[in-house]
């Protein structure tokens, strides 16, 4: 205590304390004094010390048997009951089977419709829909969007992916329509009623934290493997963004406009339809865009439960390590994603541009053109007898890709002098980063980890967060999945560390240098539209599977969001504050340390939270390519229809998700999702 300096600048002191929340600042003079001023930090340091000492003292990291409860037996019973009664029980006969049949027939008829249109008809329809969405006519925007559509569908055909692509698009159409409808209804409930908001908000929040992977299995058992369970999971996964943004739009409507409408004597209904909903249009369109993208991501992922289409191509070829084939299907998916993204985004752009809105064109005319041209193209295709994409128009890239991959593995994999090689790096990373982390986590006594998690959650949140975090960990241990979950957790932590390091560095750079921002923006846009599943492909090619490949794909998947949020945070700070510091002669480093980073703190915390959620969902999926741990249990459960195995792993993943979200969640005021 005597080390306390006599002239500690008060400002500096306060500044430091807010920072020492999670990381320990270097031992500067007065460090202990500062630490003592912050009870939460003291608690955290104490908890960490206890954990480390307990681990070193040789405490066993194994969850005690007495504290487990048996979830497997009831789950196995339920599993058997479901399989036995799926075709006879009234709940299925009169309710669930209807959903399943309706979904199946809807998807079938859309796919059949696409087949009957023929490849010419589909391409013409897709191109013209994009054109009409872009404002029709001969403006650059409409033509550019149409060109994107033409390129996407042409390439899909050329790659020989036409047929599976149509299956995917067919399922997509049905899922998007239903998810959007469900989303709008829920969004209106939560946007117009405060009680609805109070009930639905936490549901949406939790949905956003859950990795999609974790709740596939129950639906497989209820609806059996196939289109219906893919449909239901996709709708559940994709509806929340629509609902959330609809609600946001309804609540954020210009108060003056609403008051004006009220002052003119509008009824509630009139106000809703003439002012409130139109004012929310932009947000709702953004929601639709996100919903479509999440639908695509899930439809592809749902190939594991028999959704068919492009996802199945990837799944099958990944499992036989045919990188070329999986890359071909992956490219087709990305093309579909780009087409959908551009077509929906351009509608929003048009709303922003008043000049486009002023042009008074008859709104039905472009759509009549679309219908007529599609019909014409279909007639031509049928007359020529060319409904399917001609086989001789296919350029196979899978062979060359495979040879490139082989070359990479043999030439770059290992044995490059000094540098090593990708495979060497992969095993090195696994050996020197992931393994020690995992061993440390598994060697630390379970009670010490519970303590650390609780204190951490308390330090960033409140008692409620601490209780939730401890409970989540407790459930994991109680199910007897402690060791496997620590394995997954170690991968998440490793991936998160890399993601944040890279993400903050790139984000800050982009936030300070306009040229960098301009250069990486299109890249980020594209990366964010790619479905999760596709990220696995290049990693398998580079690292030939394993935990490092999983971690690498998780980093790649979470990086765009972290970079984007960091960049925005740096750019959104008050320019006057920065100018003031510059005018006082602050150096670049001083500006960054003293102004930009502290002011961007809420954004950085949000980036951490987003990074955690995204990394976890990807690490789990990477179980398929050798990541092991919980992810592989889910996959096994799905493949064998083993509810006891898959469901417990799924619950453990959910618990991990909740835990990680709680200990990384910034205060409610900065928690704005959907950035």
């Amino acid at each position, binding site marked *: 205590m005597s080390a306390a300096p006599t002239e500690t600048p008060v400002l500096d002191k306060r500044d430091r304390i807010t920072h020492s929340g999670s990381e320990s600042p270097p031992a500067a003079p007065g460090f202990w004094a500062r630490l003592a001023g912050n009870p939460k930090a003291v608690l955290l340091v104490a908890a960490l010390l206890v954990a480390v000492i307990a681990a070193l003292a040789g405490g066993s990291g194994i969850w005690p048997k007495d504290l487990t409860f048996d979830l497997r037996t009831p789950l196995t019973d339920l599993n058997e009951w479901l399989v036995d009664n799926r075709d006879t029980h009234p709940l299925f006969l009169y309710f669930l089977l209807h959903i399943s049949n309706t979904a199946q027939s809807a998807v079938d008829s859309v796919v059949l419709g696409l087949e009957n249109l023929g490849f010419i008809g589909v391409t013409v329809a897709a191109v013209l829909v994009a054109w009409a969405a872009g404002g029709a006519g001969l403006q650059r925007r409409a033509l550019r969007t149409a060109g994107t559509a033409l390129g996407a569908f042409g390439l899909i055909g050329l790659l020989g992916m036409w047929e599976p692509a149509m299956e995917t698009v067919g399922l997509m159409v049905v899922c998007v329509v239903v998810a959007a409808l469900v989303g709008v209804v829920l969004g209106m409930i939560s946007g117009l009623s405060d009680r609805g908001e109070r009930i639905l908000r936490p549901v949406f929040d939790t949905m956003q934290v859950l990795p999609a992977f974790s709740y596939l299995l129950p639906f497989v058992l209820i609806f059996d493997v196939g289109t219906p369970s893919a449909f239901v999971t996709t709708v559940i996964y994709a509806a929340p963004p629509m609902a959330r943004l609809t609600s946001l739009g309804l609540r954020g409507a210009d108060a003056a406009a*609403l008051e004006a409408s009220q002052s003119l*004597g509008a009824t509630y209904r009139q106000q809703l339809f003439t002012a409130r909903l*139109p004012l929310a249009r932009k947000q709702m369109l953004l929601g639709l865009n996100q919903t479509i993208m999440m639908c695509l991501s899930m439809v592809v992922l749902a190939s594991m439960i028999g959704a068919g289409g492009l996802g199945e191509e990837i799944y099958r070829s990944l499992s036989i390590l045919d990188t070329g084939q999986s890359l071909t299907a992956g490219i087709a998916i990305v093309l579909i994603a780009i087409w959908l993204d551009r077509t929906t985004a351009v509608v929003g752009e048009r709303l922003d541009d*008043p000049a486009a809105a002023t042009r008074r064109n008859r709104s039905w005319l472009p759509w009549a053109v679309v219908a007529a041209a599609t019909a014409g193209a279909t007639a031509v295709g049928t007359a020529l007898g060319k409904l399917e994409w001609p086989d001789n128009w296919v350029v196979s890239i899978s062979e060359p890709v495979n040879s490139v991959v082989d070359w990479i593995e043999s030439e770059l994999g290992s044995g490059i002098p000094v540098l090593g090689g990708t495979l060497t790096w992969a095993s090195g990373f696994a050996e020197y980063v992931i393994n020690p982390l995992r061993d440390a986590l598994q060697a630390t006594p379970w009670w010490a980890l519970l303590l650390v998690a609780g204190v951490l959650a308390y330090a960033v949140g409140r008692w409620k967060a601490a209780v939730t975090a401890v409970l989540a960990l407790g459930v994991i241990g109680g199910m007897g999945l402690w060791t496997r979950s620590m394995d997954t957790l170690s991968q998440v932590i490793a991936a998160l560390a890399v993601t944040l390091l890279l993400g903050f560095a790139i984000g800050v750079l982009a936030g300070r240098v306009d040229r960098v921002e301009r250069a990486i923006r299109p890249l980020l846009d594209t990366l964010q539209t790619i479905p999760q599943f596709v990220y696995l492909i290049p990693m398998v090619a580079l690292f030939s599977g394993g935990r490092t490949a999983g971690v690498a794909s998780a980093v790649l998947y979470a990086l765009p969001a972290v970079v984007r949020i960091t960049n925005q945070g740096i750019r959104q700070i008050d320019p006057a504050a920065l100018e003031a510091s510059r005018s006082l002669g602050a150096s670049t480093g001083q500006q960054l340390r003293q102004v930009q980073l502290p002011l961007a703190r809420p954004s950085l915390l949000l980036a951490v939270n987003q990074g955690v959620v995204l990394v976890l969902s990807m690490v789990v999926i990477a179980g398929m390519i050798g990541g092991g741990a919980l992810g592989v249990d889910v996959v096994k459960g799905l493949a064998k229809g083993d509810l006891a195995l898959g469901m417990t792993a799924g619950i453990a993943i959910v618990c991990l998700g909740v835990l990680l979200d709680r200990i990384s969640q910034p205060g409610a005021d900065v928690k704005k999702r959907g950035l």
Partner: protein
Amino acid sequence: MANTSAGASAEGKSETVDTKKSETVDTTKAGAVDTTKAGTVDTKKAEVEETASATVTTGADDRDAVFSVRHLWKVFGPKAKRVPADKELAGLSAAELTERTGCTAAVRDVSFDVQRGEVFVVMGLSGSGKSTLVRTLTRLIEPTSGSISFDGEDVLALDKGKLRELRRHRAAMVFQNFGLLPHRSVLDNVAYGLEIQGVGKAERRAKAQEIVEKVGLAGMEHRRPTQLSGGQQQRVGLARALAVDPEVLLFDEPFSALDPLIRRDMQEEVIRLHREEGRTMVFITHDLSEALRLGDRIMLMRGGEIVQLGTPEEIVANPADEYVRDFVRDVPREQVISVRRAMRPADAEETGSGAALAPDTLVVDAIEAVARSGEHCRVVEGGRTLGVVDHAQLLSVVAGLDDEADAADKKAATV
């Protein structure tokens, strides 16, 4: 160690001294505030009674009241109803009220009449309750207690349907932030009120077109609000209110978001509309020059209460208290005060000479007439000479010396 402790104690000492100082300062301040407040409250109350009685008497003339507001309260907060009902709570100051009940009184016991065809300006600084007041008139904000009648009809007793009818046809409002719908063209924004009434498309567009031309937006019918300047947007807001042909136009600080030059244009637009149509207007503003320019009568509010109600001339010439006097200190008096107030009784010989001026001629115009002729002017009403003004009277108005003379006059009159 000794060093640090000494430093610490020294710090502590200085701190205590500081707090003591500030405390004493605070108490003296508070005391001062209290006494002054008490003083103003008293005078204010007296004024309010006076003005209230004044309005009652003026209300008896040939014009009738459109809005008649009595003892209106709007209290925000938990169990707001009890505040106006409880004499003791009703008498508390704003800070005390918040501390004791958690409530804020935005409008406190306000009574006034708005005469048919006049421009009634409610003026006050932000937080004076003027915007809340105008919203209670059509119950966009429900008042806590009191009564409002519109053409003799009790507004607070209207059911939902009747209230909507009132909002649709009889009173339309223009908002500070325009409140336009960005997804509609100018024409459809103007026609919005008619659409809500259920008027057919062709008819409402025709009517809207007419109004659009009236407010000087011809040629912009098909633009979107975002493509217009602030002044143009407020013209759309004005047109939207005019399109429903309301009995009363309510303006809630309509021009405060505009540039000074454009504000002036818009004020002239309002004056022109009023001249042409003679529609009753209730106009909320925080800008004194705007209030003086537009208002037939001005109601000055402070802390939810009426400070003074009168014509611009009355307010400038006879401020009710120090607060109002401060407010109107910089007003060019010669542009507000009329010769009726400035004149002196005429001598026998003066009644025969000098140019004739109407009694409501402004002093600034009289100055010109006097300067040109070089002699006094007569104030003539209906062929009868009421009095005369010469250099001395006019200069004392400009110099602000007429106040005392005025007071003396009043005394003489009452005696």
